[in-house]
């Protein structure tokens, strides 16, 4: 059922310590795209030193997200329910 890619998982477990050198160029471009989106929205609140930390955190989240891609899901695999219709007694 699972095809957990342990390499990816281990990398994500390294959290904020993951170094830029470990990113592929396409991952790196994706991190830059996402950082640009954050800066576009919140730039007045984030200085250049802080943007470096935001970049690291984006990188960590992106790697966690990629790690989840190692789990095989089929079309019918629904997300954990976050919406329920209230049952009303008539």
């Amino acid at each position, binding site marked *: *059922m*699972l095809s*957990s890619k342990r390499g990816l*998982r281990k990398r*994500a*477990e*390294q*959290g*904020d*310590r993951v170094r830029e050198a470990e990113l592929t160029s396409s991952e790196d471009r994706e991190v830059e795209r*996402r*950082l640009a*989106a*954050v800066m576009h*929205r*919140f730039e*007045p*609140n*984030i200085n250049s030193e*802080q943007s470096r*930390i*935001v970049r690291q*955190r*984006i990188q*960590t*989240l*992106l*790697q*966690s*997200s990629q*790690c*989840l*891609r*190692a*789990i095989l*899901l089929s079309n019918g*695999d*629904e*997300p*954990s329910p*976050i919406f*329920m219709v*209230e049952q009303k007694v008539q």
Partner: protein
Amino acid sequence: MSQLPRSIAFASIRELGSMLREGTTTPVELARLFIDRLDTIGRSLNAVVVITADRAMREAEVAGHELAAGIDRGPLHGIPYGAKDLLATTGSPTSWGAAPLRDRLIEPDATAIARLHTAGAVLVAKLAMAELAGGMGYNQPNASFTGPAKNPWNENAWAGGSSNGVAASVAAGCIPFGIGSETVGSIINPAGYCGVTGLCPTYGRVSRYGAMALAWTLDKLGPIARDATDCGIVLEAIAGRDPCDPATLDAPFQSVAEREPSSGFRLAVLRQGLDSSQTEVRDNFERSLLVLSTWAKLEEIELPDFPYYETTQIINRAEAAAALEELFISGQVQELTAPEDRIGGYASYTITAVEYLRAQRVRMKIIAEMDRLLAQYDGIVHPSFNMVASPLNMTFEDYRGPTRWTALASAANLAGLPMITVPNGFGQRNLPTGTQIVGRAWSDSRILAVARRYQRQTDWHECHPRS
């Protein structure tokens, strides 16, 4: 100052209840005792946000009159308690531990507070917490406008997070019990670090109405108290369906109903990650297993292979960014205490809807596998944490590495499973260690029964700090 002896400060809810009914003390005397201790010891530990003295005296006087008139609301009648400062309470500010929100009033009372009021309990204080329940990714103890929460066993150590004011206050004899919250680890961690008993109930057991939302699909409220029996008493008072919290179910819960199964308890032992634990944590856990093995059948297990940490991280961060969006838009996050919290949440805005939903789909598989595993056992036992509390002057990453939660903590919180931590000894720097028991969903009373049995044979929960 109160004239009651110090030993009363460490009495259980049952013992205090007996004293009230025997007439050897009154609710007003108890409220004064615990307010005195909060004002001195509690404040010195940075555990207190505000002492609700006026409300406490009103509630205590009513409880005293009722008990004298033979009106008995049950085991919490006249018992003082504290609440993590993310629970709304009429008449006093609710800060969520965050400097920019320190004067904000939220009304009415949260459902848990209202239910404790109905049970006759007396609210004496709003207690400190990591700002925004740690939702911005704090990395060191000084992450609240009340200052770093100090551990009563060693004031150079942290009290844990995020429900640190409640855990430290219970451990220091400043309250008999308190209400904390857990998204991932925020009851089990501080209760374990402070050597008290903390119960994180099944998701949906206790209404979160009036509590700060950090991650709607992960947030739970639960008691921190002297022992498992007291945790059960408090849970019984606050549990139950609430139309204001659509996640709650009308699942019956009685604190003392669960008895040992006729075939005895069957517990799964998880040693995963033990090799990276401190020696004392490992040794105390092995000693706990020896106690458990005298009346439970123990079997070693491994968790199913899933990216628990990563799944938790995506869901938690995405929901926190949405729940706290107003603080980002207003720029108020820049006023938070911990520098890393001022920028910690921005990255979460880059999680896509597809990524979030993928995490929720993986979560469904985790829920199914954890249920399949736990259907065979009364609980999984594991150390509550693999290291004792960190020094106050050290970052968490430097102390314990980059991974914030254990696999079991992530798995149990993703699946909404009930968990309890019980103290099991001491480790480095005179700091407590703990064992946790994780149960199948809705088996809160079963894990309480296991914990009660363990605490009948051990006295770690009766150890108290000297000061």
